[in-house]
């Protein structure tokens, strides 16, 4: 149940000094980038397909578990490439077999469907990989810490931040610079209109679900060395994703990035000043933001409200 265990400080001190502040700040940004990577697929699914994908956390967990197995056979880079592809294919299968049938029905059914999927896949993970957690070592070239000049910092966390930023950049590039990305982006605002304009809406939905699943999977791969890989890890990933979407606004790329960084930073600052509310702080943040921006910071009026 502990959220973001790796975020906790290495030593407890009463008065944080400037270095502690800076290191927690960096931790917050690293965590924020990872959380944004988890949430970006989730928010696209919500925007384009109009579903809350409760299975998103479990897809994230699957990414981590596949990485655990693939890494032990073929190494880190193979896991980084293969695991998201497998998770993406699983996502497409789930969409084709089950979620597809829910379109046009009450949103509630889709919610319950993904809830049931999350529940059974989590148990499936227990059957295949066991109840207990596994730890994945960071790849050897990023083990240990690096001297930033003013402090030592974990090399793997820097790689994690770099990879998350790269993934987010590629998603942005896809949404902004390719023609199909433009369709996805438009779909996140008004998927009916996108259909009316002659795009194959079913193909778009399948694509977005598969794409979002692959994004959850890759987030799972890069998070695996930092979070302990255990069956319930999806729950720790999905709640920040929900909050980030509430914070940033449904379907908004930049809203997701801002929301992710806000959640990451607020958690790491809470860890420093008020460790006991560190699990709670993102919900408080969301409640406060909602009072001022009812649709989230970057949210626009969406069909989902009607």
């Amino acid at each position, binding site marked *: *149940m502990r959220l973001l265990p790796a975020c906790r400080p290495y030593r407890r001190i009463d008065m944080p000094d400037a270095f502690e502040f800076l290191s927690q700040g960096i931790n917050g940004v690293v965590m924020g980038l990872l959380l944004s990577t988890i949430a970006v697929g989730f928010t696209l699914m*919500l925007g384009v397909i*109009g*579903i*809350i994908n*409760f299975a998103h956390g479990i897809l994230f967990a699957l990414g981590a578990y596949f990485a655990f197995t693939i890494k032990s056979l073929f190494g880190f880079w193979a896991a980084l490439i293969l695991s998201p592809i497998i998770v993406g294919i699983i996502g497409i299968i789930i969409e084709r077999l*089950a979620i597809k*049938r*829910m379109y046009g*029905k009450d*949103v*509630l*059914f889709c*919610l*319950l*469907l993904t*809830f*049931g*999927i*999350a*529940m*059974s*896949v*989590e*148990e*499936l993970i*227990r*059957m295949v990989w066991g109840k207990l957690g596994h730890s994945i070592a960071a790849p050897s070239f990023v083990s240990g810490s690096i001297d930033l000049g003013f402090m030592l910092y974990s090399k793997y966390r820097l790689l994690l931040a770099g990879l998350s930023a790269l993934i987010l950049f590629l998603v942005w590039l896809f949404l902004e610079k390719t023609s199909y990305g433009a369709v996805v982006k438009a779909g996140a605002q008004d998927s009916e209109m996108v259909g009316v304009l002659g795009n194959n809406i079913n193909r778009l939905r399948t694509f977005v679900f598969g794409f979002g699943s692959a994004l959850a999977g890759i987030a799972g791969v890069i998070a695996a060395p930092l979070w302990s890989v255990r069956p319930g890890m999806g729950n720790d990933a999905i*709640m920040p994703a*929900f*909050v980030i*979407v*509430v914070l940033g606004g*449904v379907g908004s790329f930049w809203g997701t990035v801002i929301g992710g960084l806000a959640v990451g930073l607020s958690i790491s600052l809470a860890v420093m000043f008020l460790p*006991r*509310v560190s*699990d*709670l702080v993102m*919900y*408080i943040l*969301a*409640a406060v933001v*909602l*009072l001022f921006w*009812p649709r989230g910071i970057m949210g626009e009026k*969406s069909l*989902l*409200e*009607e």
Partner: protein
Amino acid sequence: MPLIKGYTALASEILIYAMFALGFNLLLSYTGLPSFGHAAFFGIGAYGLALTQLKWVKDLWLGLFVGMLAAGFFAALVGAIIARKRGVYFALLTLAFGQMFFFIAFRWDEVTGGETGLTGFDRPPLAIPGLPPLNLTAPMNFYLFTLIVLMVVMILIWRLIHSPFGSVLQAVKQNELRAKYLGYNTIFYKWASFTLSGMISGLAGAMFALQHGSVFPQYLYWTESGNVVMITIMGGGVVNFFGPVLGAGIFVILQNAIGALTEHWLFLLGLTFILIVMVIPEGILGLFKKTKTAQ
């Protein structure tokens, strides 16, 4: 609810879940608001009862009352913030608020006992003026008491739904804009429905705490919120007032039957959920409705 011999505690549990789901369904099917955070109010009710017993006074009615009011109070608070929303967005927000309450219960050790929860309170006797106090620790007595509470709650919800107030709620469900243009303050009605629904969930939670003699933060966890939605849908709450009662029966029996068969019962429960949503989305009582219209 027929009483299964030797399984009195199980039967009481069914009744309590039925109460929870009926309260939830007031919001879902009669106001059209999909809450995914109702376990929070259930849990608050449970903590309300436990804290009353442990820190204040060992009194049955007061405990239930405090649990119910506490849940109603927090539902009113949350409702005030989210009453303007609907649909997916409403589900998302209720979920987030539900988790907020979960973490408060999980972390606030001094009051809630944190991860280990609260234990060590028992069922106070049922005191009705003019009658000798009834010992509720006997499973049969507790079952009957639960049955009576459920009946009262059920009649009240039934009356509420069939009152002018209930008609407005259903109008909000069908077309909020139209209800608004007819001059109804729809946001107030949605808020009121949310608060009432939270109160009933809280009462169910308080009863649940009474039954188990313990309260854990897990009661507020989002998967519990998902379960109550599933109970409601499974039985056919969307099309039939009594759907949640049937759903509660199936859920508790399924949970215990599969749980006895395999340790991986969550897999089968999840699979059951998937199949029900895909094959009979209107729930079991929805099947009978279909046959009726076909004839």
